[in-house]
């Protein structure tokens, strides 16, 4: 695992600039990290609205307390920690919304109609993703919400590159299986 991948260096530069009072750096930092923080929050929170709220709250707290961060390289763990706490708070307060964002059952069934609308399809997919074990969840969301290489993802998640590979493989395999078995169900 490389010590500092390119995206980590960019992030640290942004942090340094933000710490020295450059307000544009804060904007850059939020945009730069939005995708990966969204992946983390969405992996914990079923509803997209909740995830977006959590991401916003994370950045508000983080940017307000950026001067607590004295070493730019600590930004990853620190911001992830804030995001995790925000999600836990939200879950505790909104138990109902954690389990389902719609009134419809979240788990796929064989009666899923073939012509579901786009919004429902997305919700359905998120339900399948949320049925995955937690480490796979965040990794697959991270891959699609942010544009990082396996090495960069490994550095952000604090795991080995081979772990990223395994998790993506497994997650895609499980999702493919779920979606395929539904297709077969529809055809019957």
């Amino acid at each position, binding site marked *: 695992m490389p010590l500092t991948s390119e995206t980590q260096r960019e992030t640290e530069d942004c942090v340094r600039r933000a710490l020295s009072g450059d307000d544009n750096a804060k904007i850059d930092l939020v945009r730069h990290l939005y995708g990966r923080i969204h992946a*983390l929050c969405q992996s914990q929170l079923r509803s997209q609205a909740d995830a*977006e709220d959590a991401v*916003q709250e994370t950045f508000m707290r983080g940017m307000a307390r950026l001067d607590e961060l004295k070493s730019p390289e600590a930004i990853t763990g620190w911001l992830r920690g804030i995001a995790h706490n925000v999600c836990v708070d939200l879950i505790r307060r909104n138990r109902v919304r954690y389990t389902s964002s719609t009134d419809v059952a979240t788990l796929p069934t064989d009666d899923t109609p073939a012509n579901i609308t786009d919004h429902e399809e997305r919700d359905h997919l998120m339900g399948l993703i949320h049925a995955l074990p937690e480490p796979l969840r965040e990794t697959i969301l991270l891959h699609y*919400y942010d544009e990082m290489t396996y090495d960069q993802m490994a550095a952000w998640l604090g795991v080995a590159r081979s772990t990223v590979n395994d998790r993506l493989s497994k997650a895609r395999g499980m999702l493919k299986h779920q*979606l395929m078995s539904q297709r077969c169900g529809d055809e019957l």
Partner: protein
Amino acid sequence: MNCEQCNCHLSALIDGELSATVQREVQRHLDKCRSCRDALDDLKMLDAKLTDQLALSSNAIDRAVDASTTPLGPQPSLARARWIEQIPAWSIVAVVAASIALAFVLLPRKDDPLPGTALPTAGRLVSTTGSVEVLDPESQRWQPFVSSNELFIGSRIRTPVGVNCEIEMADRATLRLGGAAELAIRSPKHIEVLQGQVWCRTSESEPLRVDARTPNSQLASSMICPANSEFQWTIDSNRAVVQALAGPATEWTGTDFRCPVGPGERIAVDNQQNVERSEEDLASTKIWQLPLLAVSGKGQEELDRVIEAALIRIGRTKTGYLDEQQIRQLGPRGAIPLLAYVQSDRSGAQVSVRHRAMQIATELADESASSRLRQLSSDQDDTIAEHAKRALQRIENNVQP
């Protein structure tokens, strides 16, 4: 290459993450194997669907940018996330300045109480990792601190080597003493550090005056810690060091010196009044407090943060190595906070840090950690459970790690 091997690489293939060599081998297999080609097609379809469905809303990003870069207000609650009360920064500064001015006015000129009057309580001992001694202003002898746990104006407190304690002052400031430290309480808003390491965090509304003195007053100094700040002092016979860990800037004055202290700065002054400033890496400054945080009921969040800040760097940087050494120097007492971290909700989000904490904890642990280790031997994470079982075995057999 067989189908099972090829399958492991398909994900990386569509993401462009395979090395040229492996990619060639995979392609060779795909050329010959229909079922793997089908599997690849299915994967590509899934990938297209996921790419299509999992898109970020640019409105949401803009909202997050706006929300986090507008001027500060008080920490908004999640429910008000989209309607922040914006208090302009200047008014916060005015409030802090006013409370500092007020503190000067309120501090009694004479700090010692009149003889014969009842001593008002200035603070109380909240938690400790061992026994602590107190010198009451009325008696002349040091006595072990007993259950009444109230501290009076004019008391002195000291810790033996290896014992830390936490004090809550009447105006809600929190103080922590390291081993072989001593401080004197002048009033609920005024303390004097005489020896060792003392950390303080002021309450949200009250400043605290902290004097620091080396033996024989060769160096005598004073500082007002503003409300909502965190500082740490280290005093030995030759010098006084202040580290500003959080909160607004302030000023440190002594007989022959006067320096501003900004957040993140470390200032050392010796008996000859030579001043040395540096920027300090703060992640490791509170490692010594870990055993105390593990003992006090409300320390979990702080403990988690200190451990994460330290461990996230281990294996990556030289300072990470030094942090690890500092943690190891805590010995068996260091195992407890590490295990408390492994058991906390928060560590679940940081798998590799959690593993590192577990690894170090199992090397340091002795019988005092047994019950936590037993709980962890049925942890969902196999690595953690394995470490816990091995550590318990070692402790039971009394074998050196």
